[in-house]
């Protein structure tokens, strides 16, 4: 069918209809509500988490009657008293906290040079290679990565094969604390590098050259110029790594083999092994509180870093 040159294109008709529909449902002068309306779906979606927190709060105030397996009708703080008096909880919390601190330090020590070389190299090919090597594990997921470590560290794994060549008896490298921490470091590296890299990009290379031309050695340039300027990025990356490793479930479960439980594993066990939903909910709320306290302490000591929402950086 020959269309006359003056025919009105279909796309325009659709657009006209959409504009008319929009004008019909949108009150005149409603412009000032636009941003709030655009934010509404996101606020509702995140609201499901708030509802979930209310459920956790309610459960945490009910105790389990071990004879009837019913939860109490009334609210009580008994679960909280128990959480602070059970020795095994203390062990698990201490193990998670120490683990998170060690993982954070090691991860930052490895991530900083990686990010630095990635940002500073003039070689575009090398930069791309380092980026791909970073994104590949990031996109593969924790379970598959932990599975890889099982193959590497297992009794018939590569490390023990190599040790066998030089006559060392097979070592038990899995299901212990170092294995969990090692897995966590590997899991956290992409997060840390991706948070550090923009902070390093923001430091002009000329400043380093200037320090060098004034006689600073590279170590002095690092400690007196680059590290202080990268502090916001280091704090941001450190906080993310600290809170993510403190609350991790998969690495302690898979590489710890049930003997190296972190807080998240203890919570899971309360729900699915002991079926004590109330106590599990109490531990979950205390974990959220512990995480927030850590963030608060770091903010108070080091400043808000790149996580500052108002853009002001100390």
């Amino acid at each position, binding site marked *: 069918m020959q269309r006359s040159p003056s025919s009105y294109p279909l796309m325009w008709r659709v657009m006209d209809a959409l504009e008319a529909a929009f004008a019909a449902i949108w009150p005149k002068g409603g412009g000032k509500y636009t941003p709030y309306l655009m934010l509404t779906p996101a606020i509702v979606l995140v609201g499901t988490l708030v509802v*979930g927190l209310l459920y956790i709060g309610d459960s945490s105030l009910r105790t389990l009657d071990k004879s009837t397996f019913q939860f109490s009708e009334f609210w009580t703080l008994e679960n909280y008293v128990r959480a602070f008096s059970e020795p095994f909880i203390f062990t698990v919390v201490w193990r998670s906290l120490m683990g998170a601190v060690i993982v954070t330090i090691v991860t930052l*020590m490895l991530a900083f040079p990686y990010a630095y070389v990635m940002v500073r190299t003039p070689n575009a090919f090398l930069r791309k290679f380092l980026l791909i090597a970073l994104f*590949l594990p990031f996109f593969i997921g924790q379970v598959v990565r932990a599975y890889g470590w099982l193959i590497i560290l297992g009794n*018939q794994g590569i490390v023990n094969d190599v040790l066998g060549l030089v006559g060392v008896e097979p070592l038990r490298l899995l299901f212990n604390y170092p294995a969990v921490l090692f897995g966590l470091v590997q899991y956290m590296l992409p997060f840390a590098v991706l948070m550090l890299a923009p902070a390093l990009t923001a430091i002009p290379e000329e400043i380093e050259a200037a320090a060098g031309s004034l006689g600073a050695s590279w170590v002095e340039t690092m400690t007196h110029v680059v590290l202080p300027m990268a502090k916001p990025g280091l704090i941001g990356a450190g906080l993310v790594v600290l809170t993510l490793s403190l609350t991790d*479930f998969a690495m302690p479960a898979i590489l710890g083999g049930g003997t190296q439980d972190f807080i998240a594993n203890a919570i899971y066990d309360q*729900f699915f092994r002991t079926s004590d939903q109330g106590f599990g909910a109490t531990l979950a709320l205390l974990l959220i509180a512990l995480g927030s306290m850590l963030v608060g302490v770091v903010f108070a000591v080091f400043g808000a870093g790149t996580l500052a929402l108002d853009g002001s950086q100390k």
Partner: protein
Amino acid sequence: MNRPRSQQIVYWSLVILTLLTLSAPTFVVLGASFTSGNIIQFPPDGFSLKWYAAIIGEQNLRDAFGRSLIVATICVLVSLPTGTLAGIALSKFRIRGANAIQIYLLLPFTIPLIGSGIGLMLAFGDAGILGNLWPIGIATAVINLPFMIWAVSSSAVGLDPDLELAAQSCGAGPVQTFFSVTLPAVAPGVITGSLLMFILSLNEFLVSLLLVDARIVTLPVQIYNSIRSIITPDLAAVSVVFIVVAMLAIAALDKLVGLEIFLKSK
């Protein structure tokens, strides 16, 4: 800039150590999946594709992968419009209480995953919707939503408000302005965010573990359940599925927006 030799040695040894740590599991899983033996080992015992043939025949693995794809698709369908609108609103408008809204929208990151997962499990359980796949899709959208918002808002900063005014003075209505000017300007952010959401949802383990029952396990949960019993090479072959998807996603991300976007300082 010329670097002293000692600095190069220190940096490069740390970079190589990091590269090895990052890449070792991937290559080992890849290698082990091609073994012709019946136990998992590396270096593999001979070369064969028999474990790939085996996983194609395994109904439960195929189903689990299909379910993971459905969950990831629902996650993107929910988070793409939600996160795009929120990201544009946060970066384009002066909003009263913007700080409070930002803190609220960061809740998915500040609440530990185990807390979010347990909370959603209790809430969804009470609503009687556990046992379906779509609540898992919504859950993965919620816990990763800040990634989507961040991706869109960081690309919306470059959006020139004059362009929207120009479109309007040329006679475009608000709907056409949005689709012809605003949306194309933030397209790199929308693409980056959607890819991240898809991959993170496909890989999501803990929240899936809490929300599935035995009939609807997703692939990461299936792998987790299997490595707790016996480790057979077919698991390595299944894991390679994740590696291939990750490689495709990286290639797409690099082609569409360039990986270097992640190095930019704000």
